[in-house]
């Protein structure tokens, strides 16, 4: 993991002092709320429906046990005993006090964390593959470049007041777990013909009101030019992105109106001036950051672990968990374990302080003290010996964290929705809960197979509904909560935007509608065909027919 040196420590500490001063100026009346709001947002502090909300950055989703314990402590000491993991791989506290926020930030700084740029029209936390460093299908560990981007983008003087927020994702694997095609910039690590590793640069993707799949602006970018190329894209966007209409301000709108070819010409022209500037990454700097992400000291193990196989044979529940929540590791004898934060009937992504503490302990015992946050709102222990999986699973079960549903229907993404959010039109969490209760039979979920349901409480699409196999979008119809359903979306390397199936369903009817869609799929799928493949084959029509058939 990356460790702060004196520069990083100084910056984060100074930032806490700066914010403490800003809070004091607000409380004393020296700053108006209008002046203060952008300053607090720049430190991740929102005002939500019930209270303030603090969004803490988890850079590229990597946490240490020490950091997780600190989050648990903050949840207990400053909040209501829990936190909410988000689709940006961050964590949100829903009840902090403004007066105590500088203290929370000081606590975070102690463990090399912060809330810088988790809001505002700036470059947000860079996200990545939750299996980075452990995935079997990886070219290189993308977190090295995420950290380089984190530093470059932190308090970037030129890009603090962009037209709109700006999100970057990096993946090092062929199978895209970071949704790089629906980010403002997506970086896909790849090799050129000479075998050198660099990036395919994708620009102008995004969800929100206008979902757009990003386009490739450069097939291959050598590593040393990463920052200059990003700076060129940002500089073009900062000058030309629309500022007259909030909903047309993201880079995707600019790329679309310019056309990718013209946009590329503008970027490359800008880049030609800065490519050989001080932004060029020296090889020794890349190497320096790489040392932080050096693999942990894996033991030399056989990939076939007898006791693991025996337990899997003996214990059906364990086998079921392994089937869904355990993924192949690049090292023989090791595995990646996903901790589901989606127990039946609970808010997706929530973890209580005592669960966070337990996870910190388990990571220490079984995963080199490392934890990952996934954009699907789960946690991951990336480096578990297969021989330890059974003990890990038993411990997870004790703290209600062993739900065997990763990738299944009940592993839903849901935004906080109208239960917390100031922008929402409808609730998301209770809809997710009711769906997971309706499908609480895990055998049935296994039979249904890989199915991603994503729920957003408003058009801003924090719940990524556009890229759900089944997407639900909450809308307000004359004061009533309704849900528009889209089908066929996907966030992986076959990114697709879902299609609206028809008129929206009421809060009461939406779960029945989801069940009808699932049943329709089960009726028409060919053997072993996943939902998204069936959809690609048959389109909307059969689903429309069952959903809107006259009674």
């Amino acid at each position, binding site marked *: 993991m990356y460790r702060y040196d004196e520069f990083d420590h100084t910056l984060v500490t100074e930032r806490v002092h700066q914010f403490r001063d800003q809070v004091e100026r*607000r*409380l004393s*009346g020296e700053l*108006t*709320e209008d002046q203060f709001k952008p300053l607090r947002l720049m430190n991740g502090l929102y*005002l*939500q*429906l*019930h*209270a*303030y909300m603090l969004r803490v950055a988890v850079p590229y989703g990597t946490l240490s046990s020490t950091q997780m314990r600190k989050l648990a402590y903050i949840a*207990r000491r400053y909040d*209501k*005993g*829990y936190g909410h993991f988000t689709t940006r791989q961050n964590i949100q506290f*829903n*009840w*902090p*006090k*403004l*007066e105590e926020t500088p203290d929370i930030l000081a606590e975070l700084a102690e463990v090399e964390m912060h809330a810088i740029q988790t809001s505002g029209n700036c470059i947000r936390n860079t996200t990545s593959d939750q299996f980075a460093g452990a995935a079997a299908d990886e070219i290189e560990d993308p977190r090295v470049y995420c950290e380089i981007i984190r530093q470059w983008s932190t308090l970037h003087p030129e890009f603090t007041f962009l037209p709109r927020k700006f999100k970057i994702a990096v993946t090092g694997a062929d199978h895209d777990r970071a949704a790089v095609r629906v980010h403002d910039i997506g970086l896909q690590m790849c090799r050129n013909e000479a075998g050198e590793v660099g990036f395919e640069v994708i620009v102008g993707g995004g969800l929100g009101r206008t979902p757009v799949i990003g386009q490739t602006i450069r097939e291959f970018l050598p590593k040393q030019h990463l920052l200059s190329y990003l700076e060129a894209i940002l500089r073009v966007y900062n000058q030309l992105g629309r500022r007259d209409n909030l909903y047309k301000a993201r880079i995707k709108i600019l790329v679309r109106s310019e056309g990718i070819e013209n946009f590329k010409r503008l970027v490359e022209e800008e880049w030609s001036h800065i490519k050989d500037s001080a932004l060029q990454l020296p090889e020794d700097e890349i190497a320096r950051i790489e040392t932080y992400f050096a693999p942990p000291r894996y033991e030399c193990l056989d990939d076939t672990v007898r006791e693991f196989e025996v337990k899997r044979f003996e214990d059906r529940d364990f086998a079921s968990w392994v089937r869904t929540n355990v993924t192949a590791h690049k090292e023989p004898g090791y595995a990646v374990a996903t901790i589901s934060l989606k*127990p039946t009937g*609970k*808010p997706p992504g*929530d*973890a*209580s*302080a*005592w*669960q966070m503490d337990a996870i910190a302990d388990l990571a220490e015992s079984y995963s080199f003290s490392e934890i990952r946050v996934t954009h699907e709102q789960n946690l991951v222990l990336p480096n578990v010996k297969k021989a330890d999986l059974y003990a890990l699973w038993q411990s997870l079960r004790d703290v*209600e964290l062993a739900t065997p549903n990763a990738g299944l229907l009940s592993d839903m993404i849901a935004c906080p929705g*109208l*239960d*917390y959010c100031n922008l*929402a039109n409808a*609730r998301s*969490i*209770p809809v997710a*809960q009711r769906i997971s209760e309706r499908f609480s039979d895990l055998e049935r979920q296994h039979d249904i197979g890989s199915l991603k349901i994503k729920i957003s409480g408003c058009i801003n699409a924090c719940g990524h509904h556009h890229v759900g196999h089944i997407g639900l979008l909450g809308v307000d119809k004359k*004061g*009533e*909560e309704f849900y528009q359903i889209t089908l066929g979306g996907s966030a992986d390397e076959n990114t697709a935007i879902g299609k609206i199936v028809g008129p929206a369903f009421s809060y009461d009817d939406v779960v029945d509608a989801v069940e009808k869609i699932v049943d329709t799929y089960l009726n028409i799928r060919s053997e072993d065909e996943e939902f998204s493949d069936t959809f690609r084959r048959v389109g909307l029509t059969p689903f429309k027919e069952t959903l809107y058939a006259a009674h």
Partner: protein
Amino acid sequence: MSVQILTANRLGDGAVVYRAKAGGWTERLGESLVLATPEDAAPVLAAAETPQASLEIVGPYLMPVDNSGGQIRPVETREFIRAQGPSVQFGNGHEVENTPLSLAG
């Protein structure tokens, strides 16, 4: 026709508050000052938008309520949730202070 009350969040801790009948701000919806007409509401809102008021509260706005039967009830789902807290259990149901409240109506 529905009447209105004035709501905001408290500056220091962000809590949902309402302009109180007795003056000042209250966390209890039932103690709100009911504003029968837009003419009644305008000066109350204006007073909450002054620099002085901003030392106490953030983001004041008027919200419609139903006060038939002597009880003040929000009209919008959003304001029900704001008044009662999230409609869902949170923190996975452990170590939390609040219990979920079902939405009325």
